[in-house]
């Protein structure tokens, strides 16, 4: 690298100072421009709604506004995930001076009607009462649903209510103010203290205290002038799409979190590792990096300070194990994604043997909010040991499935019955599965279990990244266990014997039982393999992959027993 002269650096800093003012002006410009509109239509075009025809709805709305001559008066925004994916695509109408109004299951036809019959008549007539024809009435979704009222959106704050591609809007909504606060009002130590004080823990599943992780990196000396941070966007649990939506809904919050961490820890550059199956997330991360580079948020002497940072996007090929931090780094380095032993921990020898920290997408997205609102504000939400909120992808046999964010400590009952609105089949609720293939089941009798790291672990499951699958009475627990084990057997990297062979043999035995050909001895062998895998596997994937099997055996022994050939020989599970 070419050394710069002090004069060159000073010149760069002067540019940086201007860029900061320009960025803040972008926010102001957005607000001023937004004032001009009489109404805004937010229509969901996140991955789920997009595949449900969200783009067509957007185009129809756009055309209808043009036909009605309202394009100048009504702002139309294709947003990130609005949450209630079961009712998507969703569209929200916000007319000045009126309560927001939400439509579900949108189609292009309805889009035209909304513009004609809902928006056009009301614009400029604040006194007029909204009267909808029955076919529009039935498309209304009440915003007073517990699905919405029970949520607390911190990470998902901007999703569904802003343009994911508009940097100005992000700034107008407080974006990059946290970074500016850090750079100009706080020392790196103060930032670190604030994160530690907040009690933020890793949202990728393990729940490692984020501040502690950052501190380890802060203390690690630079190696060849470098230290790295990585955003783990390799989410791969079946049914989970939190990270996909957070990144797809605009990646600036995550990037800002990474910048703040870099300032606090002295990291010199960062990587987004996002799986190839997330085209929208990839597009938005790329855009955010491009916009940030242009605005001087990434680069040398950011905003005229001594702080420099660069970020890049790397696309993962979709191997589940690459969500494991050491395998992720192997993959980033261009190798086969297989875990490597820890220690050395990434904070000592991480990516390219240099000190590195890896945090999950959701963890990063929390960071700017903590800096802006303070650690005490953050810590006031949640339980004693699990602070803040948690994003879940609530799916399965639940009425209101979708992307939700609730305070830590929300009970299973509240999640399933209130937020989720009960089972979609009307049949009695049986269990929820959390933590994906690494987790376990929470049976109906544990309905009052608060969702937090310790409690979930205690009953043999885990927080995981936030997948939550609801099951009703008709679901076979043996089949559920088989499904998850089948997933991890497919996704085992094959490096270490207990996982590679144990998973496969366990699946063979489990299939035998599911087919009604198993015996008590087979069940015992499953437990034996499970124990060896938990103890002998190198990485988290192998150590936790028996969990769905072992936890269903624990909570639903009768379902296994009923399938055994020698079920009459009393032995119990």
């Amino acid at each position, binding site marked *: 690298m070419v050394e710069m002269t002090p004069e060159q650096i000073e010149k760069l800093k002067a540019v940086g100072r201007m860029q900061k003012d320009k960025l803040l002006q972008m926010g102001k410009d957005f607000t001023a421009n937004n004032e001009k509109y009489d109404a805004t239509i937010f229509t969901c075009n996140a991955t789920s709604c997009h595949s449900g025809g969200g783009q067509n709805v957007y185009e129809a709305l756009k055309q209808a506004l043009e036909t009605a001559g309202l394009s100048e008066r009504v702002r139309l925004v294709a947003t990130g995930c609005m949450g209630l994916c079961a009712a998507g695509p969703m569209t929200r109408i916000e007319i000045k001076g009126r309560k927001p109004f939400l439509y579900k299951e949108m189609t292009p036809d309805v889009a035209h009607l909304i513009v004609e019959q809902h928006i056009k008549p009301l614009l400029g007539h604040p006194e007029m009462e909204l009267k909808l024809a029955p076919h529009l009435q039935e498309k209304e979704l009440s915003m007073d649903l517990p699905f919405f009222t029970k949520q607390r959106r911190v990470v998902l704050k901007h999703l569904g209510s802003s343009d994911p591609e508009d940097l100005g809007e992000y700034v107008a909504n407080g974006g990059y103010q946290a970074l500016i606060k850090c750079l100009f009002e706080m020392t790196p130590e103060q930032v670190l203290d604030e994160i530690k004080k907040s009690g933020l823990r890793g949202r990728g599943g393990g729940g490692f205290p984020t501040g502690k992780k950052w501190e380890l990196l802060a203390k690690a000396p630079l190696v060849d002038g470098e230290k790295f941070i990585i955003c783990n966007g390799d989410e791969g649990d079946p049914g989970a799409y939190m990270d996909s939506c957070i990144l797809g809904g605009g990646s600036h919050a995550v990037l800002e979190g990474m910048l703040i961490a870099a300032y606090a820890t002295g990291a010199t550059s960062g990587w987004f590792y996002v799986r190839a199956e997330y085209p929208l997330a990839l597009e938005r991360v790329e855009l955010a990096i491009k916009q940030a580079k242009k605005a001087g948020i990434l680069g040398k002497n950011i905003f005229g300070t001594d702080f420099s940072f660069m970020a890049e996007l790397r696309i993962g090929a979709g191997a589940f194990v690459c969500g494991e931090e050491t395998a992720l780094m192997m993959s980033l380095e261009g190798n*086969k994604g297989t875990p490597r032993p820890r220690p050395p921990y990434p904070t000592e020898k991480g990516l390219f043997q240099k000190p590195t920290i890896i945090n999950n997408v959701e963890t990063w997205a929390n960071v700017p909010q903590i800096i802006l609102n303070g650690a005490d504000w953050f810590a006031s939400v949640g339980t004693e040991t699990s602070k803040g909120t948690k994003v879940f992808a609530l799916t399965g046999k639940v009425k209101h499935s979708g992307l939700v964010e609730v305070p830590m400590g929300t009970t299973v009952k509240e999640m399933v019955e209130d937020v989720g609105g009960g089972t979609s089949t009307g049949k009695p609720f049986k269990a929820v599965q959390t933590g994906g293939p690494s987790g376990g089941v929470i049976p109906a009798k544990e309905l009052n279990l608060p969702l937090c790291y310790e409690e979930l672990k205690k009953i043999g499951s885990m927080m995981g990244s936030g997948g939550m699958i609801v099951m009703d009475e008709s679901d076979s627990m043996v089949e559920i266990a088989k499904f998850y084990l089948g997933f991890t057997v497919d996704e085992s990297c094959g490096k270490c014997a207990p996982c590679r062979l144990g998973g496969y043999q366990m699946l063979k035995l489990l299939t035998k039982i599911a087919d009604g050909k198993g015996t008590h001895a087979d069940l015992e062998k499953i437990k034996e393999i499970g124990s060896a895998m938990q103890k002998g596997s190198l990485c988290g994937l192998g150590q936790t992959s028996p969990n769905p099997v072992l936890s269903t055996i624990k909570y639903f022994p009768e379902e296994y027993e009923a399938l055994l050939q020698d079920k009459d020989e009393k032995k119990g599970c």
Partner: protein
Amino acid sequence: MVTLTIDGMEVKVPEGTSVLDACREAQVIVPTLCKHPDLEPTAACGICIVKINGRMLRSCCTPVAEGMQVITRDPDIMKARKTIVELILSRHPNDCLGCLKNGNCELQDLAQEFALDKDAFANITPTSEEMPIDKSTGCIQIDPRKCVQCGRCVQVCQNVQNVYALSSLKRGIHTRMAPAGDLPLDDSPCIKCGQCSAHCPTGAITEVDETGKVWNYLQDATKTCVVQIAPAVRVALGEAFGYKSGDLVTGKIYAVLRRMGFKAVFDTNFAADLTIMEEGSEFVKRFTTEPERLPLITSCCPAWVDYLEKIDHDMIDHFSTAKSPQAMLGALAKTYYAEKIGVEPKDMIVVSIMPCTAKKWEIKRSAEMFHDGVQNIDVSLTTRELVRMIKQMGVDFNNLPDEEADSPLGQYSGAGTIFGFSGGVMEAALRTAHYLITGKELENLEFDQITNLNEGAKEMTLTIAGKEIHIAVAHGIKNVSSVLEKVRRAKANGEKTPYDFIEVMACPGGCVGGGGQPLGVTNAVRKARQDGLKNDDRKSKVRCSHLNPDIQKLYKEYLGAPLSEKAEELLHTHYVARPLYNK
């Protein structure tokens, strides 16, 4: 030093020691299948788990820490280990009786120690049709069904040898070690060094066994069988019969070979002396009259020849054209010696005993290996194969009386015997080069600086007749690149070459650590074997190749002089650039 407690015993070990090694300090042996003492941990098998401060961790890759509490066995640990070994056996053919590694297999040992049930789980080994044996190189045999995915071979092939012929393909249960690109091994970049086979814990990678072929020749009354043994064989073979690494069993090897039925027992060390005469003369010629053709690079290691032809072929002009000692002896046996005893070359069988798997490739590598259309060496066996033959024939090896080698291709100088370790070829060459340049003998014959095995790439400058000779010695292919890069840079910049003479041996330690040697090699073993050869040199009456009376006689009677027309015809070869992949 770090103090920790292992099974209630306090142990002090240096910082950075792994828990596994610390356990050895406390006389506790923690079982493992993937960790080889010679290699970095791959952390693949999961058998070495211990409880560290209550947490179950792999001892191979966990460094010690002050105050650590380690428990190496309790019912929990034992049960998990047993299950893991049973799982491994469930995807293994378990046909030990017909396996080359029977009795010398780490998986077999573990199975025995754990007294386990090999049929605890359904056997899921693919059939031999699904996973056929790869013998394509004729040197190294891969039986993928026996592979336990320990990762040792991949590590040694990629990180030590820089060859990348082996890799781990696919994922999950389908994971398998295979040649790069899933090609036959012979079409991959493989250089046949055999380090994979020397580190494999099971029968998945072995030498291609040719002992049967040799027995057949020995039974054939129409054939006159002669044999040669390479320098490094004599300090390693004894390990299989209870001797310490480095113990010289040369006389017993001569004796046992004669009992097998070989009509003449020769020593490759003799041909090593001859190589020095040719290569040393080649060096002196270039050094004194053709400096633009420097550096001269040694070529007696066939794996290195293969690597150079495939990867570093821009250096071909710098390669010594002198054949390896094995090849020289083969050429002379079927000409000089055959004439002497009046046997047709086609009726003579030459067998060589080498510490090396690549020597099996060398005997067919170019037209020069077939003098007058007859292959000079018929079979090249590894040290391990000779051990197998000795065990097969039924002889009390340890109590055999020592015998001598046969004339005229059996007598060697100390310089010939040190060919067996890294730096030895260079040291031997310098002894003779000094004489060839100055007409005087060197005072100090040993150069510890270049025979030190602890360094991968070594440098030395020696002044002969007022002129400096810059020398580099590298072993373990990965260490060669830095040396050659310096040469390339100098050439590109039109500068004087940084080195005049370069010795390369593919295997770490040189032939003492060769891919065909007895298993279990570590730095300590290499060093002990090297010391054995150094002793052999020191106790030799003649320690310089040019002073070997049989060598002098050979030139007088048959070859004339080094680099003569006859010598060029019999003792030299050429090299061609070849693609890295065959297809």
